[in-house]
């Protein structure tokens, strides 16, 4: 009997995880796969779901007026809202990592604040910033003689406004990730580069960036996942479901389309199918990201090539194995 108890005990202890995992991960995933092959309005119980085969997928890929449009908008925002964060975050992290900067903790906190601020609050604040008549942004651009722009109403400016908010909100997050990565780079590398007389730029190009490649891969992957699911900012900035992302659906992202399909159109099957197509797209992008990262870090090829091209004086030696 005791033996049985001993056998069972570990399973009892780890069961909360499996129960939670099954209830909140496995079931919703399985249910959404089920729904993507069915027509269901969400009302009247699941018994009313009708099998639809691949109808939703073929409709979305070949007939739907919104699917590719929303994917295009999402990818645009991924490039100018999510990828651009890294162009700011890496230099910022390098500056914050510098011993010359005083009060680094204050800056770190300040950069991280937008991340922990709710998207709705952020969007409301930015609605005022982007206001055509009284907004801060038009005031600043007005100083340079630029005519006022209706940032959150004109179709060409809506994606720009959303991208600005996304950048503002998430640069701090990436900065902290890169900061953690920078602190793991051995200082000896920089010291040897100093002895060889390398300039600041050369050191960062030939040491910092190559050493950060795994972190960059991680951060970019997270950006792809987050960017392809972007919903809060466009939803709030363009006033919710009612306007479907504003003029010409300029802020109607793929995730927005999923939620609209469920909440407004009552098409749970179609919404689930969009989610799975989006998942496939994220998967493909992540593989591409990994291939690119591997190309640069594989066998130190990238580092050696960059080193050879830019600063032959630095010999980074065999310790630069980034795997």
């Amino acid at each position: 009997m005791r033996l049985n108890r001993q056998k069972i005990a570990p399973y009892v202890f780890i069961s909360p995880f499996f129960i939670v995992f099954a209830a909140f991960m496995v079931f919703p995933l399985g249910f959404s796969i089920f729904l993507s092959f069915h027509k269901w309005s969400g009302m009247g119980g699941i018994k009313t779901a009708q099998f639809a085969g691949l109808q939703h997928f073929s409709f979305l890929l070949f007939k739907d007026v919104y699917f590719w449009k929303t994917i295009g908008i999402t990818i645009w925002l991924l490039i100018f809202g999510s990828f651009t964060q890294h162009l700011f975050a890496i230099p910022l992290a390098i500056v914050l990592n510098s011993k010359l900067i005083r009060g680094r903790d204050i800056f770190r906190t300040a950069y991280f604040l937008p991340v922990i601020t709710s998207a709705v609050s952020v969007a409301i604040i930015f609605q005022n910033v982007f206001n055509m008549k009284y907004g801060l942004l038009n005031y600043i651009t007005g100083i340079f003689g630029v005519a006022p722009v209706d940032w959150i109403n004109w179709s060409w400016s809506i994606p720009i406004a959303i991208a600005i908010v996304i950048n503002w909100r998430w640069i701090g997050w990436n900065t902290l990730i890169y900061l953690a990565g920078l602190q793991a780079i051995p200082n000896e590398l920089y010291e040897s580069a100093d002895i060889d007389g390398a300039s600041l730029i050369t050191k960062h190009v030939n040491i910092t960036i190559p050493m950060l490649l795994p972190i960059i891969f991680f951060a970019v992957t997270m950006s792809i996942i987050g960017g392809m699911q972007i919903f809060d900012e466009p939803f709030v900035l363009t006033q919710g479901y009612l306007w479907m992302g504003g003029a010409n659906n300029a802020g109607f992202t793929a995730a927005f389309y999923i939620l609209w399909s469920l909440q407004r159109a009552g098409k749970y099957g179609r919404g689930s199918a969009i989610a799975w197509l989006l998942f496939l797209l994220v998967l493909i992008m992540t593989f591409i990201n990994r291939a690119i990262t591997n190309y640069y870090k594989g066998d130190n090829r990238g580092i050696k090539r960059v080193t050879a091209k830019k600063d032959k004086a630095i010999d980074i030696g065999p310790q630069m194995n980034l795997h």
Partner: protein
Amino acid sequence: MKRLCLVLIIAFLAGTLFASGPQDVSKQEITLTMGVFGDLESAYTAVKDSDGFKQKFPKLTLQFQSSDFGGHHDRLVTQIAAGVGANDVEALEIGYIARFVREGGFTNLSADLFKGKQVGKDLVKFGMSNATTTDGKLVALPVDIAPAVFFYRKSVSDDLGVELTGIASWDEYIEKGKQLTIDKDGDGVIDQYALTNPNDVSMIPLNGGKGGWFQNNEPLEPAKRFKGVLELCKKIREAGIDANFPGWSGEWINSFKEGIVVTMFSGAWLGGHFKNWMCPDLAGDWRVDYCPGKVFASYGGSYIGIPEQTSAEKKPMAWEVTKYLCTNPDAQLITFKTTDAFPALVTVFDDPIMSEPVEYYGGQKVRLIFQDIGKNIPVQNVSEYDAIAVDIFNNAIKAVVDDGVPVDEAYKTAKTEIKNQM
């Protein structure tokens, strides 16, 4: 003798039981939850605190779960889909009724247990019609309706000498709007507008957007009606009489209080918001008139229904509460007085309260206007695709107003998109 006594006692007890059967439900000690949105909580709290309600439901504990319009309906749709979590009684806006009518999720109130059609015989016809499925099931009862009216500031109208009563057409309104849109302090910047946004007008000629989006399954027909709305929005923007404030944004709300916007089209309920929190300081200055051309339209309205998932034990009491809120004259009038949510119960339309002057509107007998419009709101067919049509048409308005897309092109695109989503 003993046997006779026993028979008499049994007969008496049985008689008492049967006689008081229907009343017993309302006397039960029970807790009910009710989901509400906007300012319905304050209205129903006032009803709950009334003597009539306490007398009718002495042991009932009624708890409200209140949230904003969008949050409430998103929650409700999700919980109905999940089959759990909804409140015992739920309020829903007219724009959502078609979906539940078509797809279910709410208890059929026309069943013998409730006899909802009989109970709702004095409720507005269009409200009952919209809540009834093609096979005769009644999913909810209309609790309030929203006659669409024109609000304007009397002092501004007087100061500028612009007569704002009896406006005969939208073109006339736009012309008068130009006179109201001014630079008050002479700094070269307009600081007083006639209107918040063209979108706030767009649904008035479409009976508030509550039904009528399809004709023989063809969306946005008759075309003239919908193109006319796009043209109207375009004209308003081109006339420069709107402040371009998005609906219910901070600036939209403040614009009334601060006198930046001086006229508005909406349901009668907006007056309740004005009075209670948006601009109580402007008491006595707001006035009400018919919409241009004396259009009779609905601009909102609420229903009360009982989700199917409500337990059988609670349904009878849930029904009693629903019935009370929708068909009890006192409850209807308390709701009206608290939030200006106009009664759905036709029998109170001629209540003396309707011809009383209302202090907030400078003593104007505004309720007579509400009453007249309420009596004449047209019945329009609702469809399960209404929400899709509303959103896509709104997007077309955005395209015309904000992006300058020609009306014909925007109309054609919207029609194609609605068909695509059906």
